């Protein structure tokens, strides 16, 4: 089987600049679309996965297992756990037990600002930094009285310029100013979209005398020890959930969103594919007589199909690479707001491979039918075109 030299396919690309631009743009767009959808889904999954620490257990109010924001448990639970359960991780005698208030709160940027923003607040004590080792203060310091520590994606979550949450800036909540004392990152976790304040101050501001959850990091203890504790202290009305399970459940809640993102992307990509099919069909049909001539010379249909496919796959590969480059430049890490917070789009190997695969699929599916169509014609007929 003799093939037509590969570089003839390359030269055929130059036949029609307009068509080249259109098919290149088309395949780049389709690949970018698939890349965006994959980066969205991957970013979301990563944020759920990384957020959950397998060694962490959440104590949640019975009946509120689905949503920490609805959960209310007694202020004293943290110290009762510390006294009752063995095998909890400690550092210099300080147990990894973090009582936290997690809530959505409407904040304003100015006192009389008519506009308010729904933000995710977490009231914490110093032990929060023990049980959430992903958190790293990048600027400033942890918050003192009526101060806040701002996550890297908090401004994205609020939809405001990041400068509005720079150190020294204030936001208004419960009729009083809260000053930014520092900024933190917690790569790929849901915490990055949050605003942290001292637990006490948040409790005063919201007039609550309970917490949403107590986060515990285990050492020798098993989650069952914590569950046993909840059984023994039914009066506290607690359930123990591993942090990973909690976020895995949350991730499941967002499955339909991911499904919709995929379906939308694939539908638009299919549209692009049919457009590509048309362009390719026109390009190949214009060459019918030449393809007939090559068969007269003795080239087989397989050689001609291979040549046409090479041409299409070169475009697909170039489009795919453009999409990957654009994805890296424009999308990687880009913050996306969702109701539960914000996360960064993830352009990783899997995402890149899916985008390139989509581009190649477009190259094959977009060119094979027109190539077969053109070559189905008897040679004598093709020569008359």
């Amino acid at each position, binding site marked *: 089987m003799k093939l037509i030299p590969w570089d*003839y396919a390359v*030269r055929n690309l130059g036949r029609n600049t307009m068509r080249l631009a259109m098919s290149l743009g088309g395949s780049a767009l389709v690949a970018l679309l698939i890349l965006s959808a994959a980066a969205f889904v991957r970013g979301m999954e990563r944020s759920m996965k990384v957020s959950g620490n397998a060694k962490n257990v959440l104590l949640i109010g019975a009946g509120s297992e689905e949503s920490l924001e609805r959960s209310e448990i007694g202020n004293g639970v943290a110290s009762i756990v510390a006294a009752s359960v063995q095998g909890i991780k400690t550092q210099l005698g300080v147990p990894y037990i973090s009582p936290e208030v997690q809530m959505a709160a409407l904040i304003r940027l100015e006192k009389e600002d008519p506009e308010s923003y729904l933000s995710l607040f977490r009231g914490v004590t110093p032990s929060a930094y023990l049980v959430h080792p992903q958190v790293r203060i990048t600027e400033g310091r942890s918050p003192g009285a009526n101060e806040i520590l701002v996550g890297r994606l908090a401004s994205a979550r609020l939809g405001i310029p990041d400068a509005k949450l720079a150190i020294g800036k204030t936001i208004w909540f419960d009729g009083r100013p809260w000053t930014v004392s520092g900024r933190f990152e917690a790569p790929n976790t849901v915490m990055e979209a949050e605003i942290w304040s001292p637990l006490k101050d948040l409790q005063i501001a919201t007039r609550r005398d309970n917490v949403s959850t107590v986060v515990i990091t285990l050492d020798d203890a098993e989650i069952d020890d914590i569950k046993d504790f909840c059984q023994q202290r039914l009066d506290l009305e607690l359930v123990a959930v591993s942090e990973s399970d909690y976020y895995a459940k949350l991730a499941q809640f967002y499955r339909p969103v991911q499904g919709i993102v995929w379906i939308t992307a694939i539908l638009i990509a299919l549209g692009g594919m049919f457009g590509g099919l048309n362009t390719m069909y026109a390009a190949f049909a214009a060459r019918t007589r030449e393809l007939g001539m090559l068969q007269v010379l*003795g080239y087989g249909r397989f050689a001609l199909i291979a040549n046409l496919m090479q041409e299409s796959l070169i475009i697909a590969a170039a489009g795919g690479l453009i999409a990957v480059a654009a994805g890296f430049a424009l999308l990687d890490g880009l913050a996306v707001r969702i109701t539960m917070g914000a996360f960064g789009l993830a352009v990783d190997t899997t995402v890149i491979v899916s985008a390139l695969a989509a581009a190649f699929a477009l190259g094959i599916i977009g060119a094979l039918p027109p190539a077969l169509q053109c070559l189905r014609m*008897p040679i*004598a007929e093709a*020569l008359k075109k």
Partner: protein
Amino acid sequence: MSYIECRKLTRAFHKGDTVIKPLRDLDLDIEEGMFLALMGPSGSGKTTLLNLLAGIDTATSGSLKIGGIELTSMPRSRLASWRADTIGYIFQLYNLVPVLTAYENVELPLLLHNYSKKERHAKVSLALDLVGLADRYDHYPRQLSGGQEQRVAIARAIVGDPKIIVADEPTGDLDAAAAAATMAMLKRLNIEFKKTMIMVTHDPKTAAVAQKTLHLEKGQLIENNA
């Protein structure tokens, strides 16, 4: 036995319910080294016959033997390699590949065989010299005149040293001077290189170059020796 032997050769096309038979029970013998012209009104089946002889199309019934080989029952892929070995085809509209240079166009048939680059170069150079285009290797078809394009096409047809050259109205798109030059070239290929030449033409002056002219009418042959 003649080199080319057609017996009751028939080609029928089905178009819906109607059957068109451009060739009907045609008997024809062509000796090796012959220069044959095929004439006839438009639609008389000239191209159809030429395509059968060139192994591009297969007959509906009858027999066609070339060099003792029966073509009518040959499978598609064997026919393709038979063509590559035996036939040089010259078209009315040249059919050069626009993105390839004159040199590369002529080289195309050679890529189907196992020649080295050096061997290919020697053969392509010889063919382009023969048609008087030694100074046009790097020219693309759009940089050539119609007559020059047809000469590149002739070089492409002879580069593989085929036994038979078929030409379908090779001068149909050329002016008188270019047509005369082309015919002189085909005559030379026939006389000097002993190629069997089968040419379709409308033009009696072009046909006059051939040794023998056959007239086709309604799928039948009317012989008339020049």
